């Protein structure tokens, strides 16, 4: 999927993450802010990049402000932000790209 416009998903509440996606140039430019960056930075990064890869996003600026979200939460927030960036807010491919 392409990132057509800037979009955001998630909140800054505890155990959640706020994910922002914006149109990018050629690759994924990922910036992560987290209170547990030392413990889980790499894991957050992997979870976000894997999700983007599954959705076929190859060029985007992605910002994650993490508040201790679990991987499943992170994935859900990334998926939601990417779909919002495409103006898709219903009829999601459950079990397909989103699983």
């Amino acid at each position, binding site marked *: 999927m392409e990132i057509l416009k800037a979009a*955001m998903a998630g*909140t*800054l*509440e505890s155990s959640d993450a*706020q994910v*922002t996606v*914006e149109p990018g140039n050629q690759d994924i430019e990922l*910036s992560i*802010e987290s*209170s547990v960056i030392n413990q889980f930075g790499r894991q957050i990064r992997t979870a976000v990049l894997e999700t983007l890869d599954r959705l076929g996003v190859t060029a985007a600026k992605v910002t994650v402000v993490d508040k201790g979200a679990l991987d499943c939460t992170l994935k859900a927030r990334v998926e939601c932000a990417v779909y919002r960036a495409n103006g898709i807010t219903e009829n999601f491919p459950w079990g397909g790209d989103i699983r």
Partner: protein
Amino acid sequence: MSDYHFSEIRPGDRRAVREMETLLKAEGISKDGNLEFSVGLYDEDYQLVATGSAFANTLRCLAVDSGHRGEGLMGQIVSYLVDWQFRRGYSDLFLYTKTSTAHFFTDLGFYEVARGGDKVVFLENRKNGFARYLARLQAETEASGLKGSRIGAVVMNANPFTLGHQYLLETAAADCDILHLFMVSEDASLVPFAVREQLVRAGSAHLGNIVYHYTDSYLISSATFPSYFLKDSETVIRSQAALDTELFTKIAQKLGVTVRYVGEEPFSEVTNIYNEVMAERLSAAEIALRVTPRKAQDGKAISASQVRQAIHDGNLEVLRGLVPETTYSYFASDESRPVREKIQQAVEVIHY
């Protein structure tokens, strides 16, 4: 965990607005005159426990009741407002807060840009946003190929470009080796930025030592200086002018600017206060402020307000005497019709 719910605070809802003002006051914040959207977080007894507001691309007037600290309420407020801003298309966001509370926001994805005095901190939601802006200014300077030791700067809105602007640029350009010209690039003025830029460039093309820059959100913008565009009280203008000057100082230091040129301000109250604040603060940073007397036409100083008035009245003869040929031919052309119509329909064309 107790239940909180969000509710928009509408300007017409006097009771809610009063509650919001009380909460802000208790936290040492005065409510801004210009807000586009305010939200409150209420507890189960309908008491306001946290609030935040938005104006243009900024979040401001943020406060949490002191009895409800440590519950992550500010995170909820900021989330709500950021989401609202994104939905209406703003993604580069700025935030104001008191110095003492700045650290709360650095945990919410905001990064410090500058401090205006010892009271206000200005943050943005981009890591290195300001650093990138500075890098771009340097790249633009290198690309110009200009060299020299005496480096000056001018910031202008040029709404639109007059003989006065041209005179200021000529005076400044003659006085230094490199002149950095910052054009207010935010579209908050009657003349759209694309036109303002075109007229500034056309009217200064004969000067060979100018480097042109955009101000983005970092100088005289709705983020740093909303009261430049919308009327507000003198205290508010002063604190915003101080912040704007602080940002200018950082830019000046990066580019090696040692002198800033401004036109003398006999008409506009806000620009006058701005010049006063700059004079005080720039000297502390060892940047000289040169106030150039206004160019006069028939014994009266030229101002862009007069020019807009002439366009408003459709008086091309008056206009001709106030602007360079390049600006005149634009406003006399068919191409400028939409801009002229916009000025003619405006109720207030004089800068306060």
